[in-house]
């Protein structure tokens, strides 16, 4: 498909001694590598290693203060650094770029189709509008966008994140480029969607013979995606190997560290399964038949639609438990969090905290209950009141509940700061200067200053890097041992829940599709969605489940317009007729494991028992 394929030289892109600086600060130093036509090269590196700058430099898209300070970028033998006009003429035509922010990549006021045509005709003025349209629709079909003919006329906001990224890939490939620079394209996507996009990219590489420079920050994803992996560290290329060789014999200290830090799902090592749960005692939190819908005015649609954000959620959390709730974006985790903490009231069902229904408590009673269960929020930047000093932030909960006098409150705040490892000198400073990890410590401190019994962690660790996550998890352990906390971790990160949680609930489109002890979920999942999620998890281990076997092409259905039957049926390789008409309920699989799938054998115990999850020995 690429132009003048016969004449293509042996290397398509050849970078020699490229250096880029921001002002006087060097970002990239002496980068040299070659890229053969039709090959996929991954570039990985930590945040700040310069990989995105490299992507932009190759796309001739550096804006001040960034500038090339030396070296050459030879594309088919011609230097792009020396000839900016030539580089501009290649942009979008021979060298295509796809970024990590598909949501903002197209003009929101024009249809996707019109912009694809506009782009194609901008770089290939000789093409007629009609031909351009046909080509765009053909490519939209090629990237598995359902009913492409209709989608062509839709606006960017009508596309989901995964679909938009597919459309951007079409936008890049529509001009038959010889080189595609894919800069973090899977980063904002859910793991199962990202797995689909990666699969697509490999297909397209084979089909269109476009060389791909694949830039990402996750080693497993890079290894999955490419022929060769190049590691970037502090602006320099430190090594380049095939994925297998790289994992087996990492040549550079940074690569070794990267591999060692990767958490594992199935291999040994510390994990939450070893945690003893006291199932003899009364559950500290019991959730039964929880449901919540929101009314939204859907765009482009008349009237009000109901989004069924949470439905049929059941689980018990026992004292001393580390309970995990996992699911991808839009599965209802955040709504569930709001219901558990009494920020919102459920439409149906109940949340019992130590025997009291949080969903039905009076506002006054709820305020009292809140001394005993607390929430640690997701975003370490948005959840602290701006412009309050750290000491005041910590004393605020005590003030609200009228505990102690000023001096006592101050002592208590300092004590908690010490406990979570925040230096006493920070008492008067604003939280601005804190790192993400320190902020989360502060959040934990603020939550535990009231000495609660249950802490709900909503994506508390997602914004932190591996090392920092590890430190905080150790802190959580220590606090749990000292104060007897029970934790609920709400997360999208399988490796995290694998590491810390004793029992895990898997959510899909508002439902708990599986509730199982740690080991059982990872080694014997009872729901096809759990299996799909496991298959898509980024890991270097030998996969127990392969995405090809676990996940069909397609998008999750819209929560506004849920199909009858099982919500996962449209993407499930094992779905049969009954799945499309009847929604399976959670039922016991023995050993405290529950799953909502017809493929599991009918249990011989009564229905109510299956749901209430009583301890049966």
């Amino acid at each position, binding site marked *: 498909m690429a132009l003048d394929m016969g004449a293509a030289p042996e290397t398509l892109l050849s970078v020699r001694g490229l250096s880029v600086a921001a002002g006087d600060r060097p970002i990239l130093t002496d980068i040299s590598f070659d890229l053969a036509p039709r090959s996929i090269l991954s570039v990985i590196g930590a945040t700040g290693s310069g990989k995105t700058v490299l992507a932009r430099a190759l796309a001739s898209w550096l804006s001040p203060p960034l500038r090339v300070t030396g070296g050459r970028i030879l594309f088919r033998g011609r230097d792009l650094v020396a000839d900016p006009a030539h580089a501009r003429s290649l942009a979008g035509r021979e060298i295509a770029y796809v970024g990590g922010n598909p949501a903002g990549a197209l003009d929101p006021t024009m249809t996707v189709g019109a912009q694809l045509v506009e782009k194609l005709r901008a770089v290939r003025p000789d093409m007629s509008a009609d031909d351009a349209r046909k080509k765009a629709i053909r490519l939209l079909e090629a990237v598995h966008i359902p009913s492409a003919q209709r989608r062509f006329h839709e606006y960017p906001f009508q596309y989901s994140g995964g679909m938009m990224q597919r459309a951007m890939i079409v936008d890049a490939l529509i001009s038959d480029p010889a080189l595609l620079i894919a800069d973090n394209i899977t980063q904002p996507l859910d793991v199962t969607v990202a797995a689909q996009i990666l699969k697509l990219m490999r297909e397209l590489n084979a089909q269109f013979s476009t060389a791909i420079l694949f830039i990402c920050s996750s080693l497993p994803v890079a290894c999955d995606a490419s022929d060769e992996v190049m590691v970037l560290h502090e602006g320099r290329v430190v090594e380049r190997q095939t994925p297998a060789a790289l994992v087996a014999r990492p040549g550079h200290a940074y690569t070794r560290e990267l591999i060692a830090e990767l958490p594992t799902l199935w291999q040994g090592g510390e994990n939450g399964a070893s945690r003893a749960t006291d199932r003899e005692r009364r559950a500290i939190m019991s959730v039964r038949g929880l449901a919540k819908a929101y009314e939204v005015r859907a765009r482009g649609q008349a009237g009000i639609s109901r989004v069924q954000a949470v439905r049929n959620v059941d689980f018990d959390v026992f004292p001393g438990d580390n309970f995990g709730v996992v699911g991808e974006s839009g599965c209802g985790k955040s709504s569930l969090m709001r219901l558990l*903490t009494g*920020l919102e009231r459920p439409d149906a069902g109940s949340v019992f905290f130590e025997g009291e229904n949080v969903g039905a408590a009076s506002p006054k009673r709820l*305020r*009292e209950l*809140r*001394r005993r269960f*607390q*929430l640690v*929020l*997701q*975003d370490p*930047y*948005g*959840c*602290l*009141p*701006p*412009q309050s000093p750290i000491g005041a932030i910590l004393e*605020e*909960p005590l003030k*609200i*509940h009228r505990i102690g006098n000023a001096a006592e409150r101050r002592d208590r705040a300092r004590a908690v700061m010490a406990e979570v490892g925040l230096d006493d000198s920070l008492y008067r400073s*604003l939280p*601005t*200067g804190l790192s993400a990890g320190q902020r989360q410590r502060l*959040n934990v401190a*603020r939550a535990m200053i*009231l000495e609660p019994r249950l802490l709900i962690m909503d994506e508390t660790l997602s914004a932190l890097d591996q090392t920092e996550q590890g430190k905080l998890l150790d802190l959580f352990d220590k606090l749990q041992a000292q104060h007897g906390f029970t934790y609920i971790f709400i997360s999208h990160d399988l490796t995290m829940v694998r590491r810390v949680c004793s029992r895990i609930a898997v959510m899909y489109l508002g439902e708990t599709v599986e509730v199982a002890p740690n080991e059982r979920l990872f080694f014997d999942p009872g729901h096809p969605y759990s299996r799909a999620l496991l298959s898509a998890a980024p890991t270097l281990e030998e996969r127990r489940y392969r995405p090809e076997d676990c996940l069909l092409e397609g998008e999750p259905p819209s929560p506004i317009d849920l199909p009858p039957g099982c919500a996962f049926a449209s993407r499930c390789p094992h779905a049969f007729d009954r799945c499309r008409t009847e929604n399976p309920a959670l039922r016991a699989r023995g050993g405290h494991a529950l799953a909502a799938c017809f493929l599991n054998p009918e249990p011989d115990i009564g229905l109510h028992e299956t749901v209430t999850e009583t301890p049966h020995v």
Partner: protein
Amino acid sequence: MTSTDLPLAMAVPETGRRVSTRIWQTAFASVEFKIGLAVFVVLLAAALLYPELSGIDPSKMNIRAKLTPPIFMGEGWSWAHPLGTDQLGRDMLARALVGLRYSLLIGVSTTVLMLLAGAMIGLFSGYFGGRTDTVLMRLTDAQLSIPMIILAITILGVSRPTIPSIILVLGLAGWPVYARVMRSTVMSERRKEYVRGAMVLGATDLRIMFTLLLPLVLPPMAFVAVLDIARMMIFESVLGFLGLGVQPPTPTFGNVIADGRKYLMNAWWIATMPGVFLVLTLTSINLMGAALERARNSIYGGA
């Protein structure tokens, strides 16, 4: 009107220093702000000091010196009356400067009044939403749909205008814009995690509104309100011009210009010279206001 180009949902940024301090510093660093401030300080000092220091009574008539042209303009000018005199021989400079005092007094008080009224209504509307919001916003729309000036002249036209009544009428006519901006800001703020965090800690609604939200969202609005001081000064002068402002013999920009209009053909300076003063003052305030607005926008991440 100025406040409508506030970004409708301002994101509260993370900052080291307090946001207000940063807005001041950023604005002060700009040339516009310095020019505006310099001109304003000179004019303000003149308005506060000149009439008393020079001993010239702006209402004192002097028929022999009537219709003296400004210095260097026409025949018979005199250093005693740099801006000339009117048909009754009153000193135009003193009249303009006294007018400036009233103009500033009314402009500032009115702006403060409408800012506070609008902020309160917007705070309640945005925080509680639902029916409270619907009722308050319908009222706001109704108020917005009547031109402010019609409302003002209707009230002042049928009742006797005094300084407090002018402030009240202009202030009450101007709150809806602030209410709208406050409402949308509060609506987006209350969805933020720190508000949710405060709720989970058990804070009451009023506590969240007044100790958490108001101190955060009022200052950025207040900075932009500087522009409205100028706008209110114009309204005050319009009222004066229509004979509905502070009544003569107290000189205000409006009534002096309206007066001078009758002598436009043979004494053009009566109507135009005080206007030059007004325009200078307004430009200085608007430059400062625009600099503050830009500083605010840049700190809140642009539009």
